[in-house]
């Protein structure tokens, strides 16, 4: 009891300190650098390469925001966070935004006092089992041992799914995806469950990927997106609309290759508004007119980012699925830029 009061007081003090500070947008501009929280490493989504350069699907969001706000996609300080440290890092102001395959849930949005600024990847939790187990549906997994990453929503979803289907399971708690892979390959668990994107990435690294199957059931909705602290809507708008700009750019056919050319002026007024040749959308947010142009030029549109980091031509090989544009049957839908 006493402990919870202490922690509560600390949290309140933290938020008060965060609220008292100047707006995040001004902070970032003054600092000349964006502090962006990312994962400590997730294939395709965020990892530093041999030269120490961060790359990946989530990293591209950080870089796009930096390009929009500061005009420089390299002006990002990447702060690696684990599943346990990510929220405190954001709440305490250590980072300005978190782009770390974090699921948008009610309690995170309301109770932890964050604002999710959109969804950059629609994921869902799946199951992977060795083919030799002969299981064809997740409903047949009664009594299985399951490798599960602790401190994530997947842990809770798993419990819900097994309870709803009157099945029992034995959890094998693990800390990172890498550990899970090894445990699963070594046979410490029959089933590995995590987001379907993670399963695909993991399976791609196996020596014999065909010996493992991913169950057809997707047992949860995992909308992954960037988030910011509650209570600074201006900054939240910047992150939200940078993400929308990337999505809209794909819909409107703006790519990293033709963005500069289109910025000279086109017949499509919405393209002009996004790229800053018409209207003053940037100024409304306190950003330069070419904010979206910079983001798209340096990172590419949503489709390009997807294809480059996790698309079918990469080792991870994810299909667009739910993440296709709404015009192609997906859920990616940017509100109008006007």
């Amino acid at each position: 009891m006493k402990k919870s009061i202490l922690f509560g007081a600390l949290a309140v003090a933290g938020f008060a300190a965060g609220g008292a500070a100047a707006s995040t947008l001004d902070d970032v501009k003054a600092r000349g650098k964006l502090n962006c929280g990312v994962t400590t490493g997730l294939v395709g989504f965020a990892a530093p390469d041999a030269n120490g350069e961060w790359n990946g699907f989530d990293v591209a969001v950080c870089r796009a925001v930096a390009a929009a706000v500061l005009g420089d996609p390299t002006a990002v300080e990447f702060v690696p966070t684990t599943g346990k440290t990510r929220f405190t890092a954001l709440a305490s102001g250590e980072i300005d935004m978190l782009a770390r395959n974090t699921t948008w849930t009610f309690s995170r949005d309301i109770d932890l006092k964050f604002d999710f600024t959109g969804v950059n990847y629609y994921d869902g939790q799946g199951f992977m089992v060795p083919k030799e187990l002969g299981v064809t549906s997740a409903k047949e997994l009664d009594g299985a041992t399951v490798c599960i990453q602790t401190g994530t929503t997947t842990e809770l979803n798993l419990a819900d799914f097994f309870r709803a289907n009157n099945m029992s399971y034995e959890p094998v708690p693990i800390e990172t995806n890498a550990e899970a892979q090894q445990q699963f390959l070594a046979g410490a668990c029959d089933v590995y469950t995590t987001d379907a994107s993670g399963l695909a990435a993991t399976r791609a690294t196996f020596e014999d990927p065909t010996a493992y199957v991913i169950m057809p059931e997707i047992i949860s909705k995992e909308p992954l997106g960037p988030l910011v602290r509650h209570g600074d809507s201006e900054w939240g708008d910047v992150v939200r609309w940078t993400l929308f700009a990337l999505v809209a750019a794909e819909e409107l056919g703006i790519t990293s290759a033709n963005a500069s050319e289109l910025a000279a002026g086109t017949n499509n007024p919405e393209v002009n508004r996004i790229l800053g040749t018409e209207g003053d959308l940037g100024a409304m947010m306190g950003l330069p007119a070419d904010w979206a142009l910079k983001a798209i030029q340096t990172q590419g549109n949503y489709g390009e980012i997807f294809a480059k980091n996790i698309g079918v031509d990469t080792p991870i090989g994810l299909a667009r699925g739910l993440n296709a544009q709404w015009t192609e049957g997906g859920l990616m839908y940017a509100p109008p830029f006007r």
Partner: protein
Amino acid sequence: MSDAHAHSVAFVRTEVIPQSPPPAQQTGVMKWLRDNLFSSWANTLLTLVAAWLIYLILSAILPWIFNGVWNADSLTQCREILAGRTGACFAVLTERWNQLLFGYSYPRDLYWRPVLAFAIMLVAIAPVLFFDLPRKLLIVTALFPFIAFYLIWGGPILTPIVALLGCGAGYVVFNRYGKGNFAAGFFGGIATAFVVWGVGGFVVDLVRPETPWMTPVPSRDLGGFMLNMMLGVTCVSLSVPLGIVLALGRQSDMPLIKGICVVFIEFVRGVPLITLLFVASVMLAYFFPPDSTVDLFLRVVIMITMFSSAYIAEVIRGGLAALPKGQFEAADSLGLDYPQAMRLIILPQALKISIPGIVNVAVGLFKDTTLVSVISMFDLIGMIRGPILASTEWNGVYWELLGFASLLFFVVCYGISQYSQWLERRLATDHR
């Protein structure tokens, strides 16, 4: 007589028998084998089973090592090169060795700085570890923390100089007044050091050059085995003196000091290290306004030092308790005051008894530094678990990377252990 003798026996050897080698079973390899491996049927059985086990292990490991691929761009390429044979993919080590040793963001062209600091460290700890060496080398030891700080973190050269001046001034004050009154000298010294640091810090800020000679490297960019070494060396060297103070404090007659020490030791020993690390990385962030936090490296050093000093204090308390009461009384009867008695009579004996325990804690502490990976610092294990295994090229290479990590840790820990055994032999003055 002699004739009769000569005729009465059938044969007389006239020449000396040449020396012949001992029977094959009583010498060399054969004897050794018989004595040690095949002395009875039970031992023979054990030998055969053991040989079979060794064969099993080696037949799995040796091809894996010798077939190892050292040049490839990714795990997939490794597997193509191996084409189904067993073999390690050491290519990850050749490509990422720098990240394993220095972390992913330490500037590549500055690697010479930590390497130089490491070399100086060897010189600096030598006179501490081997007391036969000339005492003048201790000057290097005293200067080493400041040199190492300057080399690893860079920045304006005035910062380490001011730090050094503060320590020097404090020491001078302590030397001057500490003889008469320990407390006056002690607190006076600390106060002087802080005054010098305060004034010096102001001066450093005033004349901070635009581009210092040594490019500054923030703590966040430290990583790899370098981080483990830095944490290990710093925390061990800080926690031994602190542990001695705590152990003596716990034996003190003064209730306040005794109380503080007991509470500190019992509290810290009762909490897992990982909890302390989480407090360091997560909770402390709430206490400081953004952008003005205490450096994460420093926070972690404080926490690990607290943790291990509590353990070392208990080890040393064991050493103190093992001394016969006569030693304390003898010191008193010689007319020595408390610091003299401790310094000249009690501690040398108590510390000698405590060596195995202290080394045990030190080795444990060095390995515990890998726990910082859970608070997203990229030490050797953090680098492996995070960035390297999460790269599309190397996702799935476990044995090679973790084997490399264990090799590095083994070398250091085995070295520490061998040193402590040498030290025990060297200090063995009793004849047990």
